[in-house]
């Protein structure tokens, strides 16, 4: 997202602060992404719908507190969504779910490597299941949501170096597990 686009969004936010009806444009723009993000962490359509509504309601209620930090507005929505999901799991005291669609993994794999077959994708999904939650969270935001480390740090309320470290550790595990030579951010 360019600086100009981010500024345009902030103008929309300023408008929405005065008239809550203007929030509709932002809702329409980000609903699908936030819904998918929550759905991957709950695997329950109705629960996702509830949490997603709560996310946008919280955003609307706290719009006056929102301030420009040079990040896209979506990062703020993701952060609220992540907090809502965390709150839900804390309240229910159930194990966290990470649902990663096989199709999406294949898409990602096809972007980088052509030699990925069904078996390897299944192994990869198995590997992802074994990863700790904090690593999965970072990987999800980095590769499924295409966020940069600054945004990931803001969304998960961690430092930028912490986000990088988690990603590299997960990728290191992946390299070792599959005996791969993945080139990522200039590192091999």
């Amino acid at each position, binding site marked *: 997202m360019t600086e100009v686009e981010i500024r345009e969004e902030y103008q929309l936010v300023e408008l929405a602060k005065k008239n*809550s*009806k203007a*929030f*509709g444009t932002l*809702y*329409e723009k980000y*609903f*699908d992404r936030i*819904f*998918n993000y929550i*759905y991957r962490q709950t695997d329950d*359509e109705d629960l*996702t*719908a509830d949490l*997603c*509504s709560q996310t*946008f*309601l919280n955003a*609307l*209620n706290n719009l006056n507190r929102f301030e420009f930090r040079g990040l896209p507005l979506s990062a703020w929505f993701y952060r609220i969504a992540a907090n809502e999901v965390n709150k839900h799991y804390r309240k229910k005291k159930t194990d966290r779910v990470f649902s990663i669609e096989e199709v999406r993994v294949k898409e990602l794999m096809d972007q980088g490597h052509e030699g990925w077959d069904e078996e390897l994708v299944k192994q990869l999904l198995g590997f992802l299941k074994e990863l700790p939650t904090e690593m999965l969270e970072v990987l999800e935001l980095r590769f499924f949501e295409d966020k940069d480390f600054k945004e990931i740090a803001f969304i998960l309320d961690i430092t930028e170096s912490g986000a990088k470290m988690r990603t590299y550790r997960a990728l290191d595990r992946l390299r070792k597990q599959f005996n791969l030579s993945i080139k990522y951010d200039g590192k091999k």
Partner: protein
Amino acid sequence: MSAGNIARHRNYGDIIERHERDQKWKRMFRVFIYFLIVAFLSIILVIVVRWEKRKQVKAVAQSNLVTYSAFPPGLL
């Protein structure tokens, strides 16, 4: 998940309705807090005024007592 499935869950009207309800509650809560503050300050004011009054009455009574005790009968 398909876009059609997701679209089923869009409910902006409901969110706006809930937001307006929340804002109404917030306003009511704010008014209640202001009322509490005003009530508390009024009580403090009443207590202070009464205390001042009582202090004044006591001072007058004490000054009368001093006048009589300073000049006992038969001394002058």
